């Protein structure tokens, strides 16, 4: 019995260790190295042939210089803040758009639900890259939207949406919307309809019943949806580089540039480590808080 339990617990831990901890340690090690013009482009590399002395030399070659460098240059914290801002606003927008859709889906007749579900998932069958690229055709200066508005005489000069933060918001909200809708929908769908009836019987108006019953019960779905949108949006690189202009400062782009333009793997790795810490710490704190709240509720 005990062995079985141990095994069951060991599986997820082994998975995490292999696919999270080991890669993280590799990246962390590169973050402590110095960049060099060689293959691979950093030094020192671990060489076991020299025995103990070479291992000692290897560890002496590591230092926190790159992390210090990140604090010295305003670019990095500004891009972290820029990313936080874009990810937060996009999450709120996605929630605002996604909740009504999920609610409408959950309220619709049973025979309609599979179809509606399908409509939400269907865009996933097209490549993410193509879906983002097609927005270029819609919002560029010569694009569909501007042509339509110009043709109808609503505007005189084309709206500059392309290459602005607005375009990035459009891209993120559009791309991540299903990740918000699905968890909220699944929370709302499971909800017992008689609870609302009970609320109304006890004197709630429909709006009050929604506010006091539906909303709290769909909270886990909303939280899951927000995490699913916020986390990838924070490190997003493709959408800002295709739709955003040079003014959109995001850490994903900075990371890409450190890696591919500066070819400075150590600094790029340091940026990645910091990004991970920024993400993990609040999530862990939030989780702790949730657990406490749940225990207090009991």
């Amino acid at each position, binding site marked *: 019995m005990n062995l079985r339990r141990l095994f069951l617990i060991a599986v997820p831990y082994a998975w995490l260790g292999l696919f999270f901890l080991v890669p993280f340690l590799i990246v962390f090690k590169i973050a402590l190295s110095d*960049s060099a013009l060689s293959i*691979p*482009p950093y030094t020192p590399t671990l060489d076991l042939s020299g025995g103990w002395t070479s291992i000692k030399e290897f560890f002496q070659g590591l230092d926190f210089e790159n992390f210090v460098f990140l604090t010295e*240059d305003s670019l990095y914290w500004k891009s972290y803040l820029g990313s936080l801002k874009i990810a937060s606003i996009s999450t709120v927008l996605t929630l605002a758009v996604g909740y009504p859709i999920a609610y409408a889906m959950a309220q619709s007749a049973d025979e309609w639900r599979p179809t509606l579900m399908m409509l939400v998932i269907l865009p996933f069958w097209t490549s993410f890259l193509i879906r983002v690229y097609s927005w270029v055709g819609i919002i560029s*200066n010569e694009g569909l939207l501007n042509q339509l508005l110009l043709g109808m005489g609503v505007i005189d000069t084309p709206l500059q949406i392309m*290459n602005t933060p607005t375009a990035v918001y459009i891209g993120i909200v559009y791309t991540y919307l299903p990740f918000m809708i699905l968890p909220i929908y699944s929370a709302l769908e499971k909800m017992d309809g008689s609870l609302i009836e009970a609320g109304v019987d006890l004197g709630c108006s429909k709006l009050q019943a929604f506010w006091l019953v539906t909303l709290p019960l769909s909270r886990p779905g909303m939280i899951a949806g927000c995490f699913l949108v916020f986390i990838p949006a924070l490190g997003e690189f493709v959408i800002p580089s295709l739709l955003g202009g040079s003014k959109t400062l995001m850490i994903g782009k900075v990371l890409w540039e450190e890696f591919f*333009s500066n070819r400075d793997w150590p600094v790029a790795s340091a940026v990645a480590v910091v990004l991970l810490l920024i993400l993990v710490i609040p999530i862990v704190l939030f989780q702790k808080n949730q657990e406490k709240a749940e225990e207090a509720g009991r």
Partner: protein
Amino acid sequence: MKTVWLSLAALSLAGTAAVAEQVRVYNWSDYIDESLLQKFEDETGIDLIYDVFDSNELLETKLLAGGSGYDVVVPTGTFLQRQITAGVFQKLDYAKMPNAVNLWDAIKERTAQYDPGNAYSINYMWGTTGIGVNVGKVKEVLGEDAPVNSLDLVFKPENMEKLAACGVMFLDAPTEIIPAALKYIGEDPASVDPEVIAKVEPLLMSVRPYVSKFNSSEYINALANGDICVAFGWSGDILQARDRAAEADNGVEIEYNAPKEGALMWFDQMAIPADAPNPDGAMKFLNFIMDAQNMAAASNYVYYANGNKASQEFLNEDVIGDPAIYPDEDTMKNLYTVVPYDPKVQRTVTRLWTKVKSGT
């Protein structure tokens, strides 16, 4: 179910049986007449896998990571020089490439400054970095005497402010734009002194708000569609935009000019990575490319000059006769070349570039 497994097994068997010799080529985007790729496969029976990139930096990252899996890559001279130092390439065996006699000595002399004796690379194409304009729109914005053949067009804030409305793109390549900016303020464009390079910062910062995007491949289409009216880019790309606009017959007229202050001359070199899976196939590809007619077909298609003397008799008149592609003696004197940065200077340069692009 059983039949499914059987057919899968049959497929995988057929797959292994049919594995032909492969050559993997990594070249710049929009940089070859694609019918040549088919021709190479037909002539040699080798499977050609052709991938594209749009920045030297990206290519270098892949090469320095090692095991890129490519047999032929096409870095620009300055980058090639750094990469040779890092031990990325293997020496060419000219005995296996009889078509090398077609190469042009005038270009070989110039590329030897990056690759002494041309031991590691052959020239594919070369060109200049300059300014592409949508003639109609620029004149509409700046008047008839718009300085279309001068760096004033892209480095004077008052011009750029007006041009911003119709769209300006710059190459996302600090090694191309910074030398031009140095030239414009009267410094040596080939300078590798961080203090001298820092002098271009105020100039670039003053025009950056008016640049709609820094990108090294999107401007061909953007220029041809009329989405932008000025591109600071590579000669042949802008000439391709000119042709695409003419084909689309959309009323867009594109013109390329090497700036009168002087233009950067660069050389894209074909080389074989040290860890190439099929170096022999790679040399067959290089030999195929050095064939006079093949090279001429490529140049006729992409509007870049090549380093192949024998190909010149097969070039179209609008290529060999165009001074924007094959510059005359006078323009040639006005061209300059640059040298690679060492890692320390590189950091200054890329940091400056990030600042220019993001404003921070």
